[in-house]
């Protein structure tokens, strides 16, 4: 009886987290480079009344056991690194990674963070930076008199300057990849940091060793599917509701029990 109450409470808590994750996904439906998460659940421990296969007499055994489960628990929020849709912007400093990989962004603290959001800008020194001002690593500076900026699929950045027929190479964008991108730690502002579970970053030229290519003039949209999240939200809400019904039933049974003696 009391087990039923706590099992239902664990279900309520799990579904609450489910809705929290869905809410964050939906809040970021328009965030460039955002990767959706999903909550994953597991069943909790089991109380074993009797093991299957235990002897029921000297010559026979119980064909089934007796196990009472104690509810569910959230085990992970898995980030889905599927490709988002591409939106053409025409802005020369908007870039998408077609395939796996991350742009490297130098943080003010000196460490490197990683992002899929390729909406870049120039700072006053002409260096390519994120919307937050973090430097793209390796650092690339665009001359102030540059007429056009071209980013090739392999990450080569070149500019044309007045009076020069030939485009000048000013740097190459290097991308990073991880053995397990889902293990990255999201720190907000579209940035990720490596963890023990994501593995070490391997950097490389776009288009080589399984790293995706760079496309200029596009932005990667959020990979949140609104329809899917709405369905998940309905399922989560109903699951929450049904667990609250269990709490109510258990409560009514306890009340019934209290009425045994009047």
């Amino acid at each position, binding site marked *: *009886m009391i087990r*039923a109450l706590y*099992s*239902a409470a*664990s*279900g309520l808590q*799990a579904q609450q987290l*489910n809705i929290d994750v869905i809410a964050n996904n939906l809040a970021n439906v328009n965030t460039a480079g955002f990767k959706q998460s999903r909550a*994953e*659940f*597991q*069943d*909790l*421990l*089991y109380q*074993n009344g009797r093991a*299957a*296969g235990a002897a029921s007499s000297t010559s026979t055994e119980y*064909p*089934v*056991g007796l*196990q*009472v*489960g*104690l*509810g*569910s628990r959230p*085990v992970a929020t*898995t980030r*889905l690194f*599927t490709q988002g849709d591409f939106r053409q912007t025409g802005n020369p400093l908007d870039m998408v990674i077609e395939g*796996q990989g991350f742009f490297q962004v130098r943080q003010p603290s000196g460490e490197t963070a990683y992002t899929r959001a390729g909406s870049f800008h120039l700072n006053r020194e002409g260096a390519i930076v994120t919307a937050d001002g973090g430097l793209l690593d390796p650092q690339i500076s665009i001359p102030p008199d540059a007429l056009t900026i071209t980013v090739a699929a392999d990450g080569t950045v070149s500019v044309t300057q007045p009076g020069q027929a030939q485009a000048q190479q000013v740097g190459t964008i290097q991308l990073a*990849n991880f*053995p*397990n991108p*889902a*293990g990255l730690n999201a720190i907000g502002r579209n940035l990720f940091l490596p963890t023990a*579970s*994501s*593995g*070490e970053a*391997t950097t490389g030229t776009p288009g080589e*060793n*399984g790293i995706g290519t760079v496309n200029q003039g596009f932005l990667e949209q959020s990979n949140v599917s609104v329809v899917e999240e709405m369905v998940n939200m309905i*399922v989560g809400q109903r*699951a929450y509701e*049904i*667990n609250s*019904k*269990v709490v109510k*039933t*258990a409560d*009514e*049974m306890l009340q*019934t*029990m209290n*009425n*045994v*003696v*009047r």
Partner: protein
Amino acid sequence: MDSGLYTAYSGLRATADLLDVVSNNLANVNTTGFKSDETFQKMYNRAVAEAGAGPLEDAINNSAAIGGSVINLEPGVMKSTGRDLDVAIEGKGFLAVQGASEVLYTRNGSLHLNNDGTLVTSDGLTVLGEGGPIQIPQGRVSISAAGDIEVEGKAVDTLRIVGFANPMALEKVGNSLFRSVAEGATVEPGQRTVRQGTLEQSNVNPVREMVVMIDIMRRFESLQKTIFTMMNNINERSINQIGDVVG
């Protein structure tokens, strides 16, 4: 005193235990790869064990208890996710994973890579292929219907999918994992299909569980009425009124 009072009490306890099982099923209505539990009640009969007991004693000394719980292995709904490392097994069988001291089994195919590229479950347990732990090199993973894993066109390994002749031998250990007391056998690809980008949802049927829950609640109520009647009507009258007659 009345054995009937204890019979009714045993019914109350067993019914409360039933609700515990329903509650666990409903708490896991959204747990990937969860298999619901079903319970059955049985009667303990004290009189039968006593030699020479008559048919009347048989009938009045019963008490109810939960006889056991059976894992309902019906498939759950398949949900498409589009994620490369989500797999669902259509048909018989379980993914084999390496537990701390033994091989465990799961239907939860939400797989991940760890920091050295080994295929693991959400708990970090190593998923076993035909050749042991599976190392996935970087690149796009594709998993065929037979369970063969390929990365960028190169064969890596085949998922080990194990079935059991007697599914009753399975025992839940929590965390979506099962343990088996009997040895399992590899399920041939003809009997199951591995679907990449799909997850098997919980097979809990909320409608059925709700109906069971109503049944449990009403049964509980009627048992309570039985106890109430025995205590307040029969016992009280026998104590007070029979006493009056004697007095």
